[in-house]
């Protein structure tokens, strides 16, 4: 009897401990969401308050743009070539190769250009922001700004988020053009189509709503990448290990949210199209 009682008490204790651990994890999760929400909404308050650090925003725009330009050029061009090469056989079966520019226009400008740019920037820019701010946090540089009466959120976060929100749409536009150029080189090699005719055909298939959706998407992606990188960096702990963790989490979370936003925005655009 005593052994049974002892066992049941131990079981109850284990269940009790698990409950406490679970409830702590839920608490931490909810606190984390609240913290992220406050961090994000603070951006909209601070962004419109003086002083404005325009020069730093421009510096960061250059940083974001230059950091990703080469990779986006190469990736964009390759995507254009490969996607055209892979689509050609299917269209040839239907004798519809003349539709290649239109198909590429839709695929590259509406979907692939913005998405590929966002993923590259999430990897390159998001991780870099996360690591930079994380390192500033663990080496007390952010505290040093605060005690010098400089608002670190305004100087570090607002400027970086503004830069990604401005630069990533421009990079996505550039990526779409380069991808279309890649596609053009393949089409030109096979069918001797002129560049003007190719771009005209590609853009003819796109409506204003398509272009507007693409632009909106890239603005949202840019904001997401910037704010996630800054949030993870700003909340880095545990020394150098925390810096690596912040950079890694910034990339993973930004990529996940980019995909999620892609689905939501495309769905909203489709609803608008059908109504």
């Amino acid at each position, binding site marked *: 009897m005593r052994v049974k009682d002892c066992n049941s008490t131990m079981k109850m204790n284990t269940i009790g401990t698990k409950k406490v651990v679970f409830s702590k994890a839920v608490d931490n999760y909810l606190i984390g969401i609240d913290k992220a929400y406050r961090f994000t909404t603070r951006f909209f308050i601070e962004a419109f308050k003086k*002083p404005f650090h325009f020069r730093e925003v421009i510096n960061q725009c250059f940083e974001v743009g230059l950091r990703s330009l080469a990779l986006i050029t190469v990736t964009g061009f390759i995507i254009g070539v490969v996607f055209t090469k892979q689509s050609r056989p299917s269209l040839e079966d239907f004798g519809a190769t003349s539709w290649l520019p239109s198909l590429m226009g839709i695929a590259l400008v509406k979907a692939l250009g913005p998405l590929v740019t966002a993923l590259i920037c999430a990897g390159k820019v998001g991780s870099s922001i996360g690591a930079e701010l994380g*390192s*500033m946090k663990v*080496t*007390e*540089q952010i*505290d*040093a700004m*605060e*005690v*010098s*009466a*400089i*608002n670190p959120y305004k*100087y570090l976060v607002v400027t970086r988020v503004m830069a990604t929100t401005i630069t990533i749409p421009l990079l996505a536009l550039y990526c779409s053009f380069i991808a279309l150029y890649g596609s053009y080189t393949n089409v030109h090699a096979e069918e001797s189509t002129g560049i003007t005719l190719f771009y005209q055909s590609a853009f003819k298939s796109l409506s204003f709503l398509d272009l507007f959706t693409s632009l909106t998407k890239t603005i949202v992606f840019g904001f997401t990448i910037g704010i996630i990188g800054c949030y993870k960096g700003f909340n880095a702990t545990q020394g150098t290990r925390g810096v690596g963790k912040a950079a890694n989490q910034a990339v993973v979370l930004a990529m996940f949210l980019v995909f999620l936003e892609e689905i939501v925005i495309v769905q909203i655009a489709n609803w608008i199209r059908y109504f």
Partner: protein
Amino acid sequence: METPKLEHLTNSNESVISITGLFKSFGELHVLKGIDLTVFKGENVAVLGKSGSGKSVLIKIIAGLLKPDQGEVIVLGKHIDKLQGRELDELRLRIGFSFQSSALYDSMSVYQNLAFPLTMNFKHLGSKEIKNAVMEALDAVGLPDKTDQMPSDLSGGQRKRIGVARTLILKPEIMLYDEPTSGLDPVTSSEINELINNVQKRYKTSSVIITHDLTCAKSTGNRTAMLLDGRFLKIGKFEEVFNTQDEQVKRFFSYNFIQ
């Protein structure tokens, strides 16, 4: 705890920092358990204590980087824990904080590190005025020739000095030093101690020096406070604290001397 009169040290009984009944916890961890401290104008107070005893938390609360759970923290006549926005910034411009890790902005040169607080807070200053202020601060810490170097090119002692120069550029009334000599060799440590005393004389600052280095506490502090288990066990002249009969204090001092 009774605070001694300090006429012989600072010729002033005007308090610049007044802390009463300060408590601070992080979750289950109770770091500060009822701190009372008064720092008078022109006085250096060295706070001694073991690692993890809450010394750094104390000066972060004084600088307004952390909020106390309970208690009153009055800095230059203002409740720093209750201030926000512009008012807090105005008070912070009167406080200098030298970090344990120096906290120099590693993407900026020494000149830019020093000019940064000025350009951000005093937009009307011209480049010539900023340059003069930077050179004056670098001169005060004895490194006038390091303007173009990056923080990564400096030695530990030089980084500490530049960190102090960056705070001096705003001409603070209070200096807070977090472990100014930690990780430095004895010669560089004594140079830093000398620098702290020179800053006190030249800029007429009042300082709180957080340290576990007895030589630093003895040579820089007009008074020494011994922090153990979240409370001050003794505040007074270094010799008074040194001669305390408390077992924990004795162990702390004997270990330091063995070192």
